[in-house]
C-alpha cells in the first residue's frame, strides 16, 4: 500500500502540474481539495481520467470523486479494492 501511495503522489504532482509541491509535502491524510493541496474541479476531472487510464476504474458518477479523492490514504484504499489493472 505504501508503494501505491507513493505512486499516487508522483502521478498527482506530475499530471496536475503541481510545480511547487514535493512528494514529501503531501501527507497521506492531507486534504487534496480545499485548504489542503488546493486542487480544483478540473483537477478532479483529471483524477477521474487517471483512475480509468491507469487503474481501470470507471466512475459512473463524478460526484463519487468527492469521497474517493479526499486524501491519498482514501484514494489508495479505493484503488486497491477496485482496480482492474
Amino acid at each position, binding site marked *: 500500500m505504501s508503494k501505491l501511495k507513493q505512486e499516487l503522489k508522483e502521478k498527482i504532482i506530475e499530471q496536475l502540474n503541481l510545480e*511547487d509541491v514535493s512528494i514529501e509535502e503531501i501527507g497521506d491524510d492531507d486534504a487534496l481539495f480545499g485548504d489542503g493541496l488546493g486542487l480544483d474541479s478540473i483537477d478532479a476531472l483529471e483524477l477521474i481520467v487517471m483512475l480509468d487510464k491507469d487503474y481501470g476504474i470507471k466512475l459512473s458518477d463524478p460526484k463519487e470523486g468527492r469521497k474517493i479523492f479526499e486524501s491519498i490514504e482514501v484514494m489508495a484504499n479505493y484503488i486497491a479494492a477496485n482496480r482492474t489493472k
Partner: protein
Amino acid sequence: MSKQNYIRAFSHIKNHVVSLNGEYLYHDEALDFSEFIKRAYKSLDTSYSKFFKMDNLSKLAFLAADVLLEEVNSQEENIAIVLSNRASSLDTDRRHQNSIEDEANYYPSPAIFVYTLPNICIGEISIKHKLLSENSFFIFDHFNAAYLFDYAESLINTKKAGKVLCGWVDFDEENYEAFLYLVSDKGNRIHNKEEITRLYTL
C-alpha cells in the same frame, strides 16, 4: 470630439526575452519555451498558483500582462482586454487531438481541453487582476494595429472601459510572441496606429 488617449506602458515576450517599455526584465537564450517561461515567471517573482496548469498561450499572455499591469499599478478596475493572434489555440488543439486520435487509448485530458479556445488566456489575466470587464480575442493573419486602435478607442470613447489592455499573443509550436500595451487617458506615448506599429516592431 474624442479625447486624446495614450499608450501608458507596453511589454514584449519574444526571442527569449521579457521586456517592459523596451527594457529587459528577463533574458535566457538557451532555453525552450516551457523552461524559459517557467524561469521567467520565477525570476519576475510572479504569484499565481494556477500558472503551471496553464497552456503555453495562456502562460505567454498572462506573464506579458502581469509585468505590465503590476508596473502600472492601476486602481482602475474597468480595464477591457482586447487580444489577437494568428494561430488561435492551435498548439493546445494539437495536444488535445493527439490524446483522442487512438480509439484504443482514448483519454482526453480535461486540463488540456479547457484551453482549446484562445480567449481562455483573457480569463486567466482577469482572474489574477480581478477584472470584470469587456473582452475580445481576434484572429488575424498578422498583427493588425489599425483594428486594435479603432477597437480600443471605441471602448474608451463610449465609456465601455476606462483603460484597454491590447495586443498580440501568438504561440505555435516553438514560435512565440507577445506584445501587449495599455491604452489610457494618461501617458507619454500618443495612441495612434503608427506608434502602436513602432512599439510592436521594437
